[in-house]
């Protein structure tokens, strides 16, 4: 039998980490993009659920897996648009609207799923994404199995983290998003329309969230069922904070969280129940709160987060 430390030497652990992290990476990046533009999107849990449902349904009805992802992204974008319209031009309180969107999107996805998929004895399944073998890399001794035996969306998620980090720092659009999140009045004075930028960011971010959900039904598993997102959306909200609103750190945070989860699953085989598994699951939340504590002092929070911008009002 191995001991608690040997677990880290198994390639399976690291493969699991990447797999568990993927929906979190998508979701966290999505929430992060919204928040960098100044909009808190607590609709994430519902949007992920809806994405999981739509993505799965598309494939179940004969669609290609990539089409399933696209459909999920589109559905996420639609809910993002709803959240954005309510919170940006109308300026409704972001957290309450977000909770409403979560309630709405998740109950609606269960409802639609039940209407469209007839009740059957066992959950209907689809053929999910298979691990994508990358020439040479996948044949590497340890790394091949640990890192390069993932499904395509996992690679996409990791790539996205870096792309979004680059885009935020290095492109005019990214700068526009940041300035809107810091001070929409400053943005407006520079000829940037804060309302449009916010709406676009929320729509884009929500599409990413939905991709995170779709990963659950199209890659991590092969069927949809109610409550399957299991609070992952809230974890993402925590991770954004933990990452101090930086995409590359969001990636790191998601991986760290996944490591806790994957390790915890394996640890129980080794040491039994010495440490309650709940402790591991709590750590990411507590770490995020601790991170907030440090962050609040440094004022790295997007300054206009949760502040509605109404044109011509002061």
């Amino acid at each position, binding site marked *: 039998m191995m001991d608690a430390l040997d677990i880290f030497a198994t390639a399976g652990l690291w493969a699991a980490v990447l797999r568990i992290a993927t929906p979190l990476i998508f979701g966290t990046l999505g929430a992060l993009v919204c928040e960098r533009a100044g909009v808190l999107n607590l609709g994430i849990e519902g949007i992920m659920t809806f994405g999981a449902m739509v993505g799965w349904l598309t494939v179940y009805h004969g669609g290609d897996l990539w089409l399933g992802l696209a459909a999920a992204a589109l559905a996420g974008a639609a809910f993002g648009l709803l959240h954005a319209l309510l919170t940006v031009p109308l300026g409704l309180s972001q957290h309450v609207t977000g909770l409403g969107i979560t309630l709405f999107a998740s109950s609606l996805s269960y409802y639609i799923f039940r209407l469209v998929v007839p*009740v059957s004895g066992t959950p209907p399944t689809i053929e999910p994404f298979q691990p994508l073998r990358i020439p040479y890399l996948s044949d590497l001794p340890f790394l091949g199995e640990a890192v390069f035996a993932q499904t395509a969306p996992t690679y996409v998620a990791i790539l996205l983290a870096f792309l979004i980090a680059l885009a935020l720092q290095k492109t005019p659009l990214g700068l526009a998003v940041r300035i809107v999140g810091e001070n929409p009045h400053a943005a407006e004075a520079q000829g940037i329309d804060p309302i449009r930028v916010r709406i676009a960011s929320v729509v884009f971010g929500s599409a990413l969230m939905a991709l995170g959900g779709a990963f659950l039904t199209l890659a991590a598993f092969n069927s949809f069922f109610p409550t399957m997102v299991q609070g992952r959306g809230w974890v993402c909200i925590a991770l954004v904070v933990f990452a101090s609103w930086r995409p590359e750190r969001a990636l790191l945070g998601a991986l760290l969280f996944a490591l806790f989860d994957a390790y915890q699953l394996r640890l129980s085989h080794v040491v039994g129940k010495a440490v309650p598994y709940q402790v591991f699951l709590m750590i990411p939340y507590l770490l995020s709160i601790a991170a907030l504590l440090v962050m609040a002092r440094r004022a790295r929070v997007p300054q206009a987060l949760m502040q509605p911008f109404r044109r011509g009002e002061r």
Partner: protein
Amino acid sequence: AEKLKVAGIHASPVENAWNSRLHEALLAAAKDGVIEYTFSEGVSGTDYPRAMREYAEAGNKLIVGESYAVETEARQVAADYPGTAFLMGSSGGPAGDNFGTFGTWNHEAAYLAGMLAGPMSKTGTFGTVGAIPIPEVNILINAFRAGVKETRPDAKFLVGFIGTFFDPPKARESGLAQIDAGADILFGERIGTADAAKEKGIKSIGSLIDYTPRYPETVFANAMWYFRPILDAAIKDTQAGAKTGKDYSPFSYMKEGGNDIVFTESMVIADTIPAMQAKREAIKAGTFTVPVDPSEPT
């Protein structure tokens, strides 16, 4: 005879393996013209007692479901509606005249599956993924282990509990974790386990339902559980006006047709089949009793 009005209340969606066994048996009974069946699913603990009361008030004579999460309240409801029979999957015992219970006893089939599995493993390590360490789950896993031990005395076992009844991705992750830890045969008390086995190209065993059609290359045996005998017994008692406040679990026994093994001959080691079949007959004949061990496997 007049059709009996029966309601099913499923705490999980009816896709959940366990619920699907009840659901299918009830649907079949309805198709046979014995009962009239209505149901609701995904009923949370908070809503469950209300659903029971509603169905009782709507004139259902037999209400089938599960009281695991609402043992106290469910018995209270039954006491409030003496004219309705309740047949509940439960870890506790029956109560009053009208609160009957049953356990999910497919441990006999699991024992047989274990016998087939024993020699198939290269590593000698067997994983099991369970929901929560409650007696029914424990009995099942322990019976499987006992079956393995019979053909593979040096076997090592891993066990994972996912802490919930329906979270296939989590069951899958747990299965993968066990494979990482050396298991090359998985006993999947929970749906999702076989997905892990399939992904890693090892073999697995299903429980409750027949997983082989879904995972033809992976699942070589299933410890089937059939609800129909229990249901039929309860229907008979209800129609006869007899006391239904009793334990219907014995109708899960193999000799009653309540559980059995289903396996794919081409996937197992041929020499092991005769011994297993002999054991099966012994169980049916009552000459061999599969040990019932409700303690938490470690």
